[in-house]
């Protein structure tokens, strides 16, 4: 008697199709998961199956750092010592002038060294991982700097978990920084500009008044306006005039101080000291007696 059931091949094909469709739906659902859940899934994967690969890059970065010549480090130490020595009188001078102008004391920022890991996988452009996290007091929004001859801006922290953080560098399309010339004369806004080829990203300094002319090589730093980045962190140098809009403003192309791919060892500017300071101010706490450990982490004008 003939069977009315499906032939085994057909049944298997149908089952296969059902499973495939189920995974397709699941994949589409992953795309629309709430950002918090997406972060949790990603963090779980990074801390389990992908951990060995991250540890490898961390170990390589450490080894590279250790291999850095002792003579070079000594030279840097000597340079720093001479700078500190030559500027020690400036601290007292600055304190005196601030007193005369009745300015608030600068809030001290603290730097936290970290290893930067850049996954080279698809969709991870502009993103980096740090081996420091909430355990070390890192918070979302903290600026990330790198020493490249001088300290310069790399990007900022986006997500923080225990012992790890995710950041986005200046090449991310959403990156914006309020900027100024190093002498504080001209103010504008810096944003990334995609390059014509891979790795050719540049920065664009816009909203510059038409009558202001910037020479090639002018240093552009953060202005501290808006409170996202502390004042005075170098961002880049003026390359050339990019565009003029009517007769009222112009845009300049900048050469970034930090090529994002070269960052391996960075400094995170922890905001904790500044927040503590703000809380003190809101609570009506006095400004006198605050430590005058001035650094680029100072967030006031």
């Amino acid at each position, binding site marked *: 008697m003939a069977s009315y059931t499906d032939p085994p091949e057909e049944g*298997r*094909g149908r*089952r*296969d*199709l*059902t*499973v*495939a*469709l*189920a*995974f*397709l739906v*699941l*994949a*589409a659902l*992953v*795309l*629309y*998961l709430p*950002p918090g859940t*997406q*972060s949790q*899934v*990603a963090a779980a*994967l*990074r801390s389990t*199956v*992908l951990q*060995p*690969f*991250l540890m*490898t*890059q961390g170990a*390589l970065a450490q080894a590279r750092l250790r291999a850095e010549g002792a003579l070079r480090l000594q030279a840097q130490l000597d340079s720093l010592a001479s700078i500190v020595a030559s500027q020690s009188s400036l601290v007292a001078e600055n304190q005196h002038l601030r007193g005369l102008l009745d300015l608030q004391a600068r809030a001290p920022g603290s730097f936290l060294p970290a290893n930067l*890991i*850049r*996954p*080279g*996988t*698809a*969709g*991870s*452009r*502009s*993103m980096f*991982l740090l081996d420091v996290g909430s355990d070390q007091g890192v918070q979302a929004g903290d600026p990330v700097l790198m020493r490249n001859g001088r300290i310069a801006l790399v990007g900022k922290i*986006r*997500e923080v978990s225990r012992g790890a953080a*995710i950041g*986005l560098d200046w090449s*991310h*399309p*959403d990156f914006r920084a309020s900027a100024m010339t190093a002498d504080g004369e001209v103010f504008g806004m810096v944003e990334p500009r*995609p390059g014509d080829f*891979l790795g050719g990203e540049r920065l664009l300094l816009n909203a510059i008044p038409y009558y202001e002319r910037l020479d090639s090589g002018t240093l552009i730093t953060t202005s501290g306006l808006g409170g996202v980045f502390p004042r005075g962190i170098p961002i880049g140098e003026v390359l050339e005039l990019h565009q003029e809009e009517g007769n009222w403003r112009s845009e300049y192309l900048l050469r970034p101080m930090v090529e994002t*791919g070269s960052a391996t060892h960075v400094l995170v500017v922890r905001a904790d000291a500044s927040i503590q300071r703000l809380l003190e101010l809101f609570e009506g706490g006095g400004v006198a007696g605050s430590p005058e450990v001035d650094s680029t982490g100072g967030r006031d004008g």
Partner: protein
Amino acid sequence: MTRKTILGLLVPLLVVVHFFLHVGFGIERAAPDLLTLALLLAARETGMGSGGAMGFFFGLLEDAFSVLAFGASTLAMTVVGILGARTRELFVGDSLLFFFVYLGSGKLLRDMIHWVVAGEVVREPFLNVVLIDGGIAAIYLASVGLLLALFLGDSRALR
């Protein structure tokens, strides 16, 4: 060694090497996309369900490093896994040329889906991402696959 045994050893190895190259050593585009290669090789040997499942998990692993377009790789790899498995029923080809075109188109399709799904925030010009970078990456991946096939000799293990 049978075709299944070879693929059973090769596919996990490619996945591990992919993450060591891209994440462990931080090599970006200079290293081929061995994850997609592993998926395309495995998909030809399995059914659509297994191809989709494999693509889903491979894509999820890659998305663990994608803050701004989470899920784009998962969807792209799932579709490629399913279609890769389907090609076995549609095209019966075991020539090296077919194998090269199969791998190249699979990678190009993966990049194209990723570009479409990734969203406007991270989407760069189609010409740069898919046609130029994607085209080069597809040829790179297909060449690596071809070399692997030639290295494994006459076993036709991969085709």
